[in-house]
């Protein structure tokens, strides 16, 4: 087994960036080695009889647990729904596991649970099984939630992070960085004239509508931790292609832009919880974008670039006409944002 570069787990191993990838490829993948896992999608696609089942899990440790535009409960339901939707699945059922710190307020727990119920009612995805553990004070931070879920995928849908083809168009469903900046500003007590809310939202209906245009969508991914930059790098690496994007095409809210400016963040690396990146054949790209814009979670959908053969990197054309590399997130940007 390859040797990791440190002998202790650091926060950066959970950032979704390079260190996370290293941990996965050097510890988890060799240990659990199997063809489903090795695809490195956000969900596994399993065939049971005639059914194609998408299956996924995710844990939520966000701090603070209530933030502008959402809370840990809503996030935990939508996060898992979105991971399922990213392979074109119709999400059906999810589980919920709670790890709660001794002393946590029942009132706050009730708020979290009812927020999950609301998310479940809104999407029609039922929470059908669960588990509760309580740990000593200080052994967890308020509440951690794990959700897992499954959904069904149509036979002719084949969406995977390794299917980007040269000439494909790259689409983002809306403005980037809202979630990361909303959480950070709440945590650090920063206030803006126009408050920034998390974009936390379910994307399964949006994906269904996109698939109604064509089943030939090549890649879908929600750019959560590590942001748009990390997601594009994952697609480029897994597909063995390059991606060229244009800075002026990427939608970013003024307030997010301003917050990133003075905090020293690059919005390309800031997390989203209600956005998706799609890689689609050029001939369908305009129709898909126009369809997306009818959905309330994707009114600002935009083609931001295309897949190229060389260089096999993510390259950004800057607003003033220069070019630069966009690398994967390195180190830790914002701790515990999901």
């Amino acid at each position: 087994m390859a040797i990791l570069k440190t002998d202790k787990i650091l926060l950066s191993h959970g950032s979704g960036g390079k260190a996370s990838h290293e941990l996965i490829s050097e510890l988890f993948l060799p240990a659990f080695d199997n063809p489903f896992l090795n695809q490195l999608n956000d969900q596994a696609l399993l065939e049971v009889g005639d059914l194609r089942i998408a299956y996924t899990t995710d844990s939520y440790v966000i701090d603070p647990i209530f933030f502008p535009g959402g809370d840990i409960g809503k996030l935990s339901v939508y996060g898992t729904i979105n991971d399922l939707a990213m392979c074109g699945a119709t999400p059906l059922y999810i589980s919920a596991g709670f790890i709660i710190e001794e002393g946590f307020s029942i009132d706050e727990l009730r708020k979290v649970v009812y927020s999950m119920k609301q998310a479940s009612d809104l999407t029609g995805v039922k929470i059908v099984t669960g588990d509760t553990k309580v740990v000593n004070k200080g052994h967890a931070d308020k509440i951690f939630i794990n959700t897992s879920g499954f959904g069904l995928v149509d036979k002719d849908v084949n969406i995977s992070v390794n299917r980007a083809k040269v000439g494909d168009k790259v689409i983002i469903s809306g403005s980037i960085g809202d979630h990361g900046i909303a959480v950070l500003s709440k945590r650090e007590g920063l206030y803006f004239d126009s408050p920034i809310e998390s974009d936390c939202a379910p994307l399964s209906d949006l994906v269904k509508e996109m698939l109604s245009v064509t089943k030939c969508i090549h890649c879908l991914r929600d750019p959560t931790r590590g942001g748009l930059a990390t997601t594009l790098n994952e697609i480029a690496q897994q597909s063995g292609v390059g991606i060229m994007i244009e800075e002026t095409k990427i939608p970013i809210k003024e307030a997010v832009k301003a917050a990133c400016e003075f905090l020293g963040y690059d919005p390309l690396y800031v997390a989203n919880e209600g956005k998706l990146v799609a890689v689609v054949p050029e001939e369908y790209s305009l129709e898909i974008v126009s369809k997306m814009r009818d959905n309330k979670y994707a009114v600002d959908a935009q083609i931001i670039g295309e897949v190229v053969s060389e260089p096999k990197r993510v390259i950004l054309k800057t607003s003033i006409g220069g070019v630069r590399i966009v690398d994967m997130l390195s180190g830790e940007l914002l701790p515990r944002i999901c």
Partner: protein
Amino acid sequence: MKYLDEYRCPNLAKKILDNIKAISKQEIKLMEVCGTHTVAIFRSGIRNILPDNISLISGPGCPVCVTSKEDIDKAIAISRQKDVILATYGDMFRVPGSFSSLEKEKANGADVRVIYSSLDALKIARKNPQKKLVLMGIGFETTSPTVASTIITAKKENLRNFYVLVCHKVIPPAMKAILDSGEIMINGFICPGHVSTIIGSHPYEFIARDYNVGCVITGFEPIDILQGILMLIQMIESGYAKVDIEYRRFVRADGNPIALKLMDEVFRVCDSNWRGLGMIPKSGLELRDEYIMFDVKSSFDIEIDSNDKSEEENLQCMCGEILKGVRIPPDCRLFGNLCTPDTPVGPCMVSSEGTCAAYFKYGDIKNR
């Protein structure tokens, strides 16, 4: 006026660039002194749109990069002491000292907090009266006034558990050291706008007068930087060096008198050891006697365990040469293979404003 999009305007950029191409005749080297400029230049792709006769050299103005190993070792040693909370700015967290980093110490149980402002450190100190809060004070004239103001507040509040490890440095003497070394010929300096928001333009005048090298105090948006370069080229082509201000929307020749007064109240100038550049006379700040009770030196026994110093410095690391502008990152054998932002060997790769990190992250597309 939103102060962002106007300064990223493609048409205006093209106009300035055409102007640069029209008047620039000589082979020249311009040094961007500050790491914020280095990153801004890479992020906007300015290097690959400038004509080939203009080279941009990255200078020593990344505060994290030039903090000496000894100071980082001290911070680590302090963080290991009982009942200590060590507060630091983000980038310092991962910089390796001689034997460890604050990030590794945190994983081992030290209470290290990443803060955005020195005032956050004060809040932590007030909330934890039973603990000693040590602020690692690093940075140039941009951050030292806020640390000075924090120390003054701590004194007014009679806060007894607040200490500072003072590692502050000042910019102009480092520029003088680079010119005096004679290792590199520089035709002009792109000076950091935020530093001059505090110090004004006068502290650079000796550079134009004594060395005949022009300085333009420049903002950080792409249009600012292109305009700053154009102003330097106009000086170079006319043969007349002076100090000029591009960043007029914030900088006055006299700087910010309130901030300067705060700095002068709390700090005095001292010699300082720069990582890569060595000891530079009158290039650092230390606390005045009236504030010495906040200095870690007066309140902590800082012992660096000599057993810990086992890790030899990697002799192939070129950070020193890179900070002086003598070499560029791709010249270093470690760059990009042994030394990456995830496994940094030298400080220029750790700091997000470090030259090596900028080269690695944003790329020298032509040379990769």
